[in-house]
């Protein structure tokens, strides 16, 4: 029973990280039909941002890194959109291969810059400790995810920019002929989505070491969240991320890491048999 309880914060915090990663993916996929394989490297960029900021901010690096990593990863995403992705809208397979290439290049770049071995980011003293079975650092990650979801929800539903983003997601052509600059909305979505991956990266420094392949550990699961939650769906992503995080950690707890992966995949495949469109559906149109 105690093991069961200890596993809960692990599952929830992994779910929280997956959610942060999946939000960006689901928006870029739902809105632009882009499968961005380099998204995982924005996580890594966020984590290394926290690592670098330690020199300057010491053990508060994690806090300082949150906004900085958001901007750093966001700008990387924007750069990727402007320099590569925008030329291949409407061609998902080309984009997939290209961004995969970019992902490998970024990993190598990280190896050259920071070395292949993992590095450690020291978390703030006030995050050491726990309430019952719930360690503060995992609690912090959950708060981070909840805060981000609330912020994204407010942005989408309460701001003019967010409304424009929804319009483009729901009917791109109509948005364009209604006077919305869809290209600019795409850039903004890419920036925010990538920035969230950067925040996820900072969160990950609290529960593990940082290495050039950090992103690849999480990106597949994040894609599963996107597919299971329904493209472009905030609600779906939240539910799917928490479910997947819990499923992952309990399957690992009761079996072992590789068997757990098999179980997770089996559950998701079974789920998609019943609901191929994911938990929630959004009527969206192809890019023209």
């Amino acid at each position: 029973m105690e093991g069961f309880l200890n596993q809960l914060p692990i599952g929830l915090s992994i779910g929280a990280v997956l959610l942060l990663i999946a939000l960006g993916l689901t928006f870029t996929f739902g809105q632009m039909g882009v499968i961005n394989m380099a998204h995982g490297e924005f996580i890594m960029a966020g984590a290394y941002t926290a690592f670098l900021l330690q020199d300057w901010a010491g053990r508060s690096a994690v806090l300082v890194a949150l906004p900085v990593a958001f901007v750093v990863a966001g700008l990387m995403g924007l750069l990727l959109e402007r320099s590569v992705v925008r030329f291949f809208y409407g061609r998902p397979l080309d984009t997939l291969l290209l961004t995969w290439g970019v992902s490998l290049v970024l990993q190598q770049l990280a190896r050259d810059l920071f070395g292949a071995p993992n590095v450690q980011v020291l978390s703030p003293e006030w995050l050491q400790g726990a309430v019952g079975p719930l360690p503060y650092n995992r609690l912090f990650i959950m708060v981070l995810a909840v805060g981000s979801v609330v912020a994204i929800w407010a942005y989408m539903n309460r701001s003019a920019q967010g409304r424009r983003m929804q319009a483009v997601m729901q009917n791109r052509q109509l948005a364009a002929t209604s006077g919305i600059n869809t290209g600019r909305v795409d850039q903004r979505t890419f920036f925010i989505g990538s920035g969230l991956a950067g925040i996820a990266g900072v969160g990950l420094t609290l529960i593990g070491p940082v290495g050039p392949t950090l992103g690849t550990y999480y990106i597949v699961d994040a894609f599963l969240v996107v597919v299971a939650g329904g493209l472009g769906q905030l609600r779906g992503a939240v539910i799917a991320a928490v479910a997947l995080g819990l499923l992952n950690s309990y399957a690992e707890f009761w079996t072992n890491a590789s068997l757990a992966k098999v179980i997770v995949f089996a559950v998701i495949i079974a789920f998609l048999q019943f609901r191929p469109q994911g938990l929630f559906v959004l009527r969206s149109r192809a890019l023209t």
Partner: protein
Amino acid sequence: MLSVDGLEAGYGRARVLFGVSLAVTEGQLVCVMGRNGVGKTTLLNTIMGVLPATGGTVTFEGRDVTRLKPHERVKLGMGYVPQGHETFPQLSVLGNLLVTLEASGNPQSALDDALEVFPRLKPLLKRRAGFLSGGQQQQLAIARALVTKPKLLILDEPTEGIQPSIILEIEEAIERLHASGIAVLLVEQYLDLALRLADRYVILDAGQVVHAGTAADLQGEEARRLLAV
């Protein structure tokens, strides 16, 4: 005000428009007619920049807009209501209007004016657009275009699949807008409605203009034969 010269467009290798020319002068209502599949929607989409023109030019108020993006054309004063009463289905009626208003930078009064044209929308403002009836969606679609304060309103079969009483309302709205000085380019299948509204008409067949003239000419045998009515 709008001048289309030798416009060519198509989908991939399938060409649909073979050099279409037409003009809408200040305050005029021009009706484009033709059988299903002759390229009316393709023509409007090319005029709005949704489809790239492979030949010819589109000029609006003396400015060559052939290469402009759709939203840039909207900014210049071209309002478009696409075929099939399209909305942003998950936004509310108000959300649909607001998102257009915000993109246009027009003052709130533009939205209020648009609602005056279709007062039926007022009690529905909080409703999701996807839940409206076809007729209500069409009124919303036109209201949304009006929010951009267009100088030229381009409408693609606004009465298609809509019940007679609402058709009447839409017709009256178009008439009033036209009377207020807005130029209109209208695709319409109902000959009666076209006859009542249009100053001039253009008949398309197989991606070409086969007939054009004033509304009076439309009564003639030739025009009726081309429309197969």
